Structures are given as structure tokens and as C-alpha cells.
């Protein structure tokens, strides 16, 4: 009797073992921490002697994997708000054509993610590489940025220049002296644990 039960027990043990292994794998995936935000900030400004233009977007969605360094941003063009309603209208209708192309985004990777210690408060310089899509045009870019860790949560700050021309955004010569050929873009995302 006992002898015939033994192999069954062994099988059961094996099953439990497999289950535990699977659970460990699952927990490991869970432990691969992803930080997200639904309301990050992206702003840009254009300075010319004729006119200054500022725009701010408070609804940036972003996800960021602290282990692999993968990072993505998605924005809606219509969420960019300007001081003047007329600028906002021109931005949407004439330049970004937001009815046709309502989104822009970036998907890429932080190269030196291992240099960031998420358990220690501090400021870490990083570089990110990836693909930026604006106005339906995708371009490979590389930008330097800063990750500020505070209380285990990261904040990502990136500042870079962007030329509308490169993304096939036409600015008529009539207003060329009011809109800079190169915009200063700032990204500021404070993440939460997913």
C-alpha cells in the first residue's frame, strides 16, 4: 500500500515544485518595476525678437522600466495649451494638423540605466536613445537627461532642441520671424509605482 502511494507523492511534490517555480517567475516579473504617470509635463518655447511663444501639456502619459531602461512617452497635440487662443488654433490647424495626426510620442531606452540607484536619493545623468514621432514623421534621436530619485520614486527631466522643419512642419515665410526655427522642449515627468 505504502509502496504504491510513494510515486504519487513524488508526482505531487513535482507538481508543487513546478508551481512554486512558476510563482517565482511570476513574482520576478512583478518585481521588474515599472513606473508610470498619467500627468507628466512637456512644454516648449520659441523665442524671437518679434514674439515669445510658450505651450504646456499636462497630460503626458509615460511608462518607464527601471530594470531594462525602456521608456516611452505619449502626448496628444490638442492637450498643448498656449497663453493666446489664436496661437493654439494656428498650432493645431496650420502647423501640427492635429485633426489628422492627434498624437506624438517617443519610444526608446535609457542607455546607462545601471548607473541609477533607485534606492538612494540623488540626481543621475543619463542618455536616452530612441524614436520620436511628431506630425507623422519618425526620427531617431539621442538626448541627455536627468533622473532625480526621491523616496524611491524617479522624476525624469529632459531638455532638448527640436526643429519643426525636420518633422515636415511648414512655417509660412509671412510668420517666419515670429516662430523660431528651433524650439526648446522640456520634459518633466514625476512617476508613481505601477
Amino acid at each position, binding site marked *: 500500500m505504502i509502496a504504491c502511494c510513494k510515486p504519487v507523492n513524488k508526482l505531487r511534490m513535482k507538481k508543487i515544485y513546478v508551481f512554486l517555480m512558476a510563482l517565482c517567475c511570476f513574482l520576478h516579473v512583478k518585481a521588474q518595476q515599472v513606473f508610470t504617470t498619467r500627468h507628466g*509635463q512637456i512644454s516648449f518655447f520659441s523665442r524671437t525678437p518679434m514674439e515669445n511663444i510658450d505651450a504646456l501639456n*499636462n497630460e503626458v502619459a509615460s511608462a518607464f522600466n527601471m530594470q531594462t531602461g525602456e521608456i516611452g512617452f505619449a502626448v496628444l497635440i490638442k492637450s498643448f495649451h498656449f497663453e493666446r487662443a489664436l496661437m493654439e488654433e494656428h498650432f493645431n490647424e496650420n502647423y501640427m494638423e492635429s485633426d489628422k495626426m492627434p*498624437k506624438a510620442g517617443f519610444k526608446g531606452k535609457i542607455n546607462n540605466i545601471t548607473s541609477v540607484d533607485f534606492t538612494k536619493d540623488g540626481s543621475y545623468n543619463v542618455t536616452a536613445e530612441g524614436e520620436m514621432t511628431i506630425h507623422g514623421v519618425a526620427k531617431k534621436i539621442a538626448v541627455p537627461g536627468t533622473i532625480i530619485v526621491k523616496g524611491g520614486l524617479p522624476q525624469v527631466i529632459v531638455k532638448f532642441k527640436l526643429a519643426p522643419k525636420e518633422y515636415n512642419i511648414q512655417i509660412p515665410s509671412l510668420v517666419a520671424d515670429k516662430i523660431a526655427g528651433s524650439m526648446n522642449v522640456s520634459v518633466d515627468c514625476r512617476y508613481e509605482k505601477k
Partner: protein
Amino acid sequence: MRKKTVRLAIVLSLLCIAGGAIFVYRMYNKPHRSAATETVVVLTAGQLAAAYELDEAGANKKYLGNAVQVSGTVSELSFNQQNKQVLILTGTGMSAVQCSLLEDKAGVKKGDSVIIKGFCSGFLTDVIMDRCIVAKQ
């Protein structure tokens, strides 16, 4: 006779220039759109989220950039980085409706049924509405 015509022409052209200048000035300073005064499309948060899940391009044609009034249940409250209140309304099982309010604090709590008026900016993982006001709590 000739003098009179010349004078009239000068007065008329000055009026035209003044009119044009006033028009340009008013265009330049025109106020932002407000969901409070625009005619709105009325639907529930569930209907709006479902419309975007099913056919994003089609939903954009109907709602993108338009004033929309949604009714729904507040499932999450937070603040954005400008310290303005953001409400998440329960949509479908997959996606929700995110409303960024103009106000700093909405005076609503989790689980409340609300009616929100705002402008639809499009769809990320949720439907995004901004410049929102609470029409009814």
C-alpha cells in the same frame, strides 16, 4: 467737388485701416474656448471610452477637439504637476475617461457620480479630456 472726393476717400481708407486694426487686435486677443458656453455632445463615460476602443479614428472624427459632456463615476482622484485636480471616470473594463479640471479642487470624492464638461483631446490608454468643469455633482 474734387476736394470733397479726395477727403471722402481719405476718411474711408482711414476707417478701413482702423476697422482692420481692431479686427486683428480682437483676433489676437480672443479668449480661450470654454466648455461652459459651448454646445456639448452628451454621453456617458462608458459610451465615450467604448467608442474610442472600438474605432479610434471614427471617435476622433466625432469628438476630437469638441466640447463633450460626460457622466460617470469617479474611480480615482489625483493632482497633476500644476496642482490641478484630475478625475478618472470609470469607462469600460479596459479604459477610462481622464478629466483634467480647470479648478484646483473639485470637491468630489471617490465613488461620486458626476457630470463633467470639457474638451476631448483624444485617446492614449484612456480618453483624455481637458479644460474640464464639474457641471453637476
